[in-house]
């Protein structure tokens, strides 16, 4: 039996009010355990795509399936169940500022009834250990650095035991010296076989951690290729121009 892809996006279009077409006929399949990195210039629709996959944006047309189950119908409950299956990590962490570290992580699993109190705390501690922040369990989040907050945000997403995690530029808001600590956590998740879709401008991470690069421009997927191929011999002009631009920036 052929397993369906974990996430399957077909014919996805997204038009914002005012007629801005952010996504145009997107087709994308992500298999279990795969790490997909989405690259593309600003305004190309990367955020919109993963926000659609997470159900934070209503789609205009097209279909998004997780494990073959379609999101058609769009009832509130379906959306919620859908969101339980894919976690999301935001650029600005979006931790709950009134809660301490461990409560940030256990809030959703407890509310959704995914875990019991004891289990939730145990699981949160295990995750904090994993990202090297076990000592910060009871700290208020405002007392943590950006890099630490983003690692907590990753724990918070993982605590829901999602089937895949979406990252939208998780290191863009960080001071340079903190980028590494977040990327190394992500690399570790990738190695452990967590399915990830990641929008990033970190080319080093894209090269070493991605199974596949998806290059977007003007709301379309222009090219999909394994990183070795994409970075050494991109097929389309647009990809080439993008890579030239990047390398002229970063030397």
């Amino acid at each position, binding site marked *: 039996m052929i397993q369906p892809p974990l996430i399957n996006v077909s014919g996805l279009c997204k038009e914002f009010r005012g007629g801005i077409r952010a996504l145009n006929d997107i087709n994308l399949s992500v298999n279990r355990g795969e790490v997909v990195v989405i690259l593309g210039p600003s305004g190309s629709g990367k955020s919109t795509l993963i926000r659609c996959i*997470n*159900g*934070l944006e209503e789609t205009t047309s097209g279909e998004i399936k997780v494990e073959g189950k379609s999101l058609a119908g769009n009832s509130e409950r379906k959306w*919620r*169940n859908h*969101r*339980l299956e894919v*976690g*999301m990590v*935001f650029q*600005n962490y*979006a*931790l*709950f*500022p*009134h*809660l*301490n570290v461990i409560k940030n992580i256990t*809030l*959703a699993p407890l*509310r*959704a009834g995914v875990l019991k109190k004891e289990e939730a705390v145990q699981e949160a501690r295990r995750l904090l250990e994993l990202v090297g922040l076990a000592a910060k369990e009871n700290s*208020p*989040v*405002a*007392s943590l650095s950006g890099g630490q907050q983003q690692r907590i*945000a990753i724990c*918070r*997403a993982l605590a*829901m035991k999602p089937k895949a995690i979406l990252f939208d530029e998780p290191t863009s808001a960080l001071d340079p010296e903190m980028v590494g600590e977040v990327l190394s956590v992500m690399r570790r998740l990738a190695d452990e076989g967590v399915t990830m879709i990641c929008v990033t401008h970190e080319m080093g991470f894209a090269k070493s951690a991605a199974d596949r690069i998806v290059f977007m421009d003007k709301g379309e997927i222009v090219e999909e290729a394994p990183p070795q191929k994409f970075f050494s011999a991109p097929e389309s002009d647009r990809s080439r121009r993008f890579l030239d631009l990047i390398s002229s920036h970063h030397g």
Partner: protein
Amino acid sequence: MDYQFSFPYIWGATPDLLDGLWITLIVSLLSIIFSVIIGVVCASLRVFHVPVLSSVAAGYVHFIRSTPLLVQIFFIFYGLASLGFGLSGFWSGVLALSLWGGAYNTENIRGGLSAVDKGLKEAAYSLGLRPIHYLRLVALPIGLRVCIPALLNTAVSVLKNSSYLQAIGVAELTFVAMDRVAMDFRTLEMFLAIGLIYLVIVLLLSTAVRRLETFLKAPFNTA
């Protein structure tokens, strides 16, 4: 002009004033609590654009803010009685002040809720939280902290406006003072005395709320 200001007179009036103060405190406390509850409910309806109810809440706020409080008090005390829903002066007063404060608190809390970072809502939804859980566990705890100063303002106004209830015979502080003035004509003593009492309770209330605010904001300020 040989009015003799008499401290002993105030002293002698203390038991009566304390009775009035007690009623003022109870009416105010109940009204402040109810007004915050009304504010939380109506602001939530507004912020989440709940169909129909959101418009009802908006209309209610508009009505209260556009009519004099004294008219509202009379409407509830006399108006409802003529419809057969008569309430005692005390409960008419609590109802009127709660509705009045509730309208202002709706706007206060709406302001607080809209100051909550939109990203937190998305984060909560992306974690599969229901809107009601987002509201209860994230938006209100943060939004209410933000609008504590505005809530305090309204609470102080509710407390001061409880003096209007003398018009429907509730034996609160102002009523007691008026009562004694009618008997003894000691206007200066009585109004000075209750003025000072109001001042002291407002100061105490403000201090208590500021302490609470500092305490509640502690986790935000450790950066």
